[in-house]
């Protein structure tokens, strides 16, 4: 990205945050919210994050690598287990980074 595109992204992201956090605070009751749509909105963020995470964890050197020789996948599994056990993002990051570092040094 060029510097101009990066600043456009920053300004755009600011507007996105301002707008999404204020939709109802500005429109209030004038905006009807069907239950079906509310449910859909509830699921979209998890889907977006899963779509961003999958390639980061499962693709290695440009190819699909669903094996434990893939350091990032291995660390991701350890991190996910930690999150499910502790519900702490800090602990998840510590365990995940420890697994990632160990895998990098121990598995070639």
């Amino acid at each position, binding site marked *: 990205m060029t510097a101009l595109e990066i600043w456009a992204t920053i300004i755009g992201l600011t507007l996105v945050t301002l707008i999404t*956090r*204020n939709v109802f605070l500005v429109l209030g009751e004038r905006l009807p919210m069907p239950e079906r749509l509310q449910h*859909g909105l509830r699921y*979209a963020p*998890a889907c977006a994050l*899963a779509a*961003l995470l999958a390639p980061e964890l499962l693709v290695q050197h440009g190819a699909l690598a669903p094996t434990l020789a893939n350091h990032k996948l291995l660390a991701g599994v350890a991190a996910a287990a930690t999150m499910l056990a502790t519900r702490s*993002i800090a602990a998840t*990051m510590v365990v995940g980074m420890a697994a990632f570092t160990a895998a990098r040094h121990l598995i070639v």
Partner: protein
Amino acid sequence: MIGRSLFGGDASLAALRRASFVRGVRAVAPALLATGVWGLVTGVAMVKTGLTEWQALGMTLLVFAGTAQMAALPLVAADAPVWVVLAAATVVNLRFVIFSATLWPYLRRFPLRKRLLLGYVTADIAAAVFVARYADAPEDERGSTEQVWFLLGVTSAIWLVWQAWSIAGIFVAGSIPGEWGLDFAAILALLGLTLPMINSRPAAAGATVAAVVALAAANFPLKLGVVAAVIAGTAVAMATDVALDRLRSAG
């Protein structure tokens, strides 16, 4: 003097405002460590993605939405078009639309400018802490001085801690060796944020489909695979939701 300009000149009102503000700060205190770590990692990740220090400062001070920033960074690194980055961030931010609906009964009495400011600074943790505290408040008390200054206390604490650690991250990023893979810490944090969102069968079905489509469509031009994955995942989640509802009402 500072107290007077912050909380107003009327002594009893100022005391109530200050007490409510402090209660808000205390209520959010247990979450501040996670906020700090997440801010630090975001600060580092912005610089590691290739943003200059000024761009990273601009991003943290203006955008103030960690998950959206983190979601944007891999797309910025992949040279995706600006509109694709914004579309992905909008979807990640859709949960705020629901939060804003939750906050509306409490803030409806306030002028637009104050609503905009409070809405803008109220992110995930602040909304959760506020709603946990006042969900059962009687309807005629909603938006009371006590509640709004509690929310101000919560959001001020988060804003300060987030910005301080994020800015620290921006300035230490350069001295962290690349081989530590600290940008990967951002991915792990994102993973930690995502898992609690997958708390139902429709969410699990949607997230799985989104992940599979994202992998299958990884080579789509303009990073459009992400867009396709979100649409497919959300559609499957909603369809699963409807199907489960039917099963329940049939059985």
